[in-house]
C-alpha cells in the first residue's frame, strides 16, 4: 500500500522534474553511489589543490629518508630517492585522474559522433564503419594500447590517444544499438515530418532517448581506463618517471618490493580507491537510469 502511494508521488515528481531530475532523485537516494561520488569529488579536489596542500614537495629528494618506512612525519614513507610518498600520491592523482577522464572523454566524443552517424543513417556508412570497428575490436584492448603507446612514445597526450582508441568501438556499438530501437519510434517520425533538421532530430530527439547506456558505460569506462593507464606505466610505457603517476610509482617500487613493500602498497591502494568510487557511482547511475533492473 505504502509503495503504491510512493509510486504515485514519484510519478507526480517526474512530471515536474523531467527525466533528468528523476534520475538524479533516484541517484541521491542511493547511499553507496553517493559515497562514491563524494569521495571522488574529494579526490578530484585534492588533485586540483595538490600543489598547495601536499605536506612535502613531491620532487624533493633526501638522502637521509631513502626508503624511510611509514612514520608520523611521512605517513606513507619515502621512496628510493627519499621523496615523500603521500605527497607524490596526492600530486600523482593529477596525472592518473586526468588520463582516465580525458581518454574516456575522447573515446566518448568520437564514439557518440560515429555512433549517431551510423545509427541514424545506417546503410553503407554503417557497414563500412562497423567493419573497421570489427578490426579494431579483434585486437585485445590492452594489446592495442601497448602497441599504440609504443609507437607514439610516452607522455600524457600520447597515452590519452593510445587509451582512447580502444574505447571507441564499444561506445559506438552501444549507442548504435540503442539508436536503432529509438529510431523506429513514432515521435522521431513526427519530428522528421515537421521538418526538423537532421542535426536537431539527432541531438534533441534521438540522443536524449538513447544515451543512457553510454553514460553508464562511460562512468565504468573511466575506472577501467585508469587501470589500463596504470598498467601501461607499469610496464614502462605511458607516463614515465619523474612525473608522479600511480602506475609509474608502482613500476619504480617493484624492484624493491620484498624489502620495502610500502613503496608499492600505497599507490596501488590509491588506484583501487578511485576505481572503486567510479564503479560505485556507475552502479548507482545504472540503477537510477533503469529502475527495472533494481530490486
Amino acid at each position, binding site marked *: 500500500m505504502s509503495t503504491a502511494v510512493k509510486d504515485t508521488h514519484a510519478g507526480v515528481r517526474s512530471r515536474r522534474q523531467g527525466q533528468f531530475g528523476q534520475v538524479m532523485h533516484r541517484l541521491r537516494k542511493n547511499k553507496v553511489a553517493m559515497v562514491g561520488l563524494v569521495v571522488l569529488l574529494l579526490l578530484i579536489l585534492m588533485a586540483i589543490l595538490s600543489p598547495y596542500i601536499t605536506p612535502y614537495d613531491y620532487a624533493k629528494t633526501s638522502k637521509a629518508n631513502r626508503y624511510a618506512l611509514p612514520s608520523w612525519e611521512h605517513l606513507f614513507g619515502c621512496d628510493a630517492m627519499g621523496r615523500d610518498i603521500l605527497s607524490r600520491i596526492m600530486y600523482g592523482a593529477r596525472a592518473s585522474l586526468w588520463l582516465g577522464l580525458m581518454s574516456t572523454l575522447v573515446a566518448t566524443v568520437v564514439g557518440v559522433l560515429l555512433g549517431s552517424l551510423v545509427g541514424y543513417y545506417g546503410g553503407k556508412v554503417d557497414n563500412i564503419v562497423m567493419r573497421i570497428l570489427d578490426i579494431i575490436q*579483434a585486437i*585485445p584492448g590492452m*594489446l592495442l594500447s*601497448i602497441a599504440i603507446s609504443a609507437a607514439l612514445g610516452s607522455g600524457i597526450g600520447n597515452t590519452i590517444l593510445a587509451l582512447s582508441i580502444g574505447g571507441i568501438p564499444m561506445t559506438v556499438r552501444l549507442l548504435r544499438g540503442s539508436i536503432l530501437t529509438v529510431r523506429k519510434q513514432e515521435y522521431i517520425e513526427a519530428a522528421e515530418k515537421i521538418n526538423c533538421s537532421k542535426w536537431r532530430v539527432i541531438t534533441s530527439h534521438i540522443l536524449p532517448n538513447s544515451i543512457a547506456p553510454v553514460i553508464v558505460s562511460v562512468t565504468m569506462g573511466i575506472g577501467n581506463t585508469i587501470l589500463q593507464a596504470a598498467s601501461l606505466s607499469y610496464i614502462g610505457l605511458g607516463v614515465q618517471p619523474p612525473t608522479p603517476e600511480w602506475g609509474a610509482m608502482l613500476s619504480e617500487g617493484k624492484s624493491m618490493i620484498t624489502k620495502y613493500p610500502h613503496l608499492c602498497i600505497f599507490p596501488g591502494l590509491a588506484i583501487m580507491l578511485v*576505481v572503486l568510487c567510479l564503479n560505485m557511482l556507475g552502479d548507482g547511475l545504472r540503477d537510477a537510469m533503469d529502475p527495472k533492473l533494481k530490486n
Partner: protein
Amino acid sequence: MIRYIGKRLLWMIPVMLGIAILIFSIMYICPGDPASSLLGPSASAVELAAKREEMGLNDPYIVRLGRYLYQTFIKFDLGTSYKFGTSVFAGLMERMQYTLVIALLCMALQVFVGTPLGIMAATHHNGVWDRVSMFLALVGVSIPAFWLALMLVLIFAVNLGWLPTSGVSNGLASFILPCIANSFAGIASQARHTRSSMLEVIRSDYIVTAKAKGLSRRTVLFKHALPNALIPIITIVGNGMGMMLGGTVIIENVFAIPGVGRYMTDAINSRDYPVVMGGVLILGLIFSLIMLLVDIVYAFVDPRIKAQYEGRKGKK
C-alpha cells in the same frame, strides 16, 4: 549453421588483413631505428646505412606494407626476429603454451567460480551472502591486476613461502598466483553479470508459473531460470577472453613468465617489429576464433537463435 560458420570464417580474412595493415602502420610510425638497435651503438654510419638498405627500411611505406602483406598472407611467413634472428612464428609458438595455459585457466576460474557466486548472490537477493559477495565483486573489478599480483607475491611467496615468486620452473604451482591475479577481475565481473541476469529472469512470469506449479526450488532454479540467464552471460565470457589475453601481457611481466606477452613487450622495447606484428596477428586470430566459438555456443544454448538459422536455411 555450417553456412553461417563458413561465412564467419571467410569474414575473418579481411579482418586479419585489416589487423595486419593497422599494426603495420602503427609500427611504421614507431620512433627508433631497428638497424641501430640491431647493430649496437658501436656501428658506423656506413654500416647502419647498409643494414637499413638490406632490411628494406628505406623503401616507401606502401612498398613495405605490400611486402609485409605478401609475406604474411601469401607465403604464410611472419618473418624473422631482428633481435634473435629466428623465425617469429616458431618463437611465438614456443611461448604460446604459457600464455594459453594462463588464459585458459583464468577463463575456467572466471566461469566456474564467477557464475556460481553470481547465482548464489541472486538466489539470496539482499541477504548477507548477496551483500558480501557483491561488495567483494565490486572491489574485484576495481583492483589493478598487476598490483594484486605484487601483493599476492608479497604475501604468499615472500612472507609465507608457499609458492614461487616468478618463473615457470615449478610446474602448476608457478601458475597459481598469476592465474589468481589475472582472473580476479574476470571472476568479479562474471559474478556481477550473472547476478543481474539471474535477477531479471527470476522476476519473469514463467518462473512465477513454475513456482506456482509447485516445482521444487532446485528445479525452478536450474531447469527454468539458469538456462535463460546464461544467454547474456556467454557474451561476457567471450569478452573476458579478450581481457585475459591482454591481461597476460602485464601478468607475464610481473611474474617473469616467458610467454607471448613478455616476448612482445621485450620486442617493443628493442624495436623488434616483426615479433610485435606477428604477436598481435596471432593473438588477434585466437581472439577472433574464440568470439566465433562464442557465437556458435550462443546458437546452441538459445533455441531462438538456432531457429533463426534454420529458418533462413529453409528459405534458401
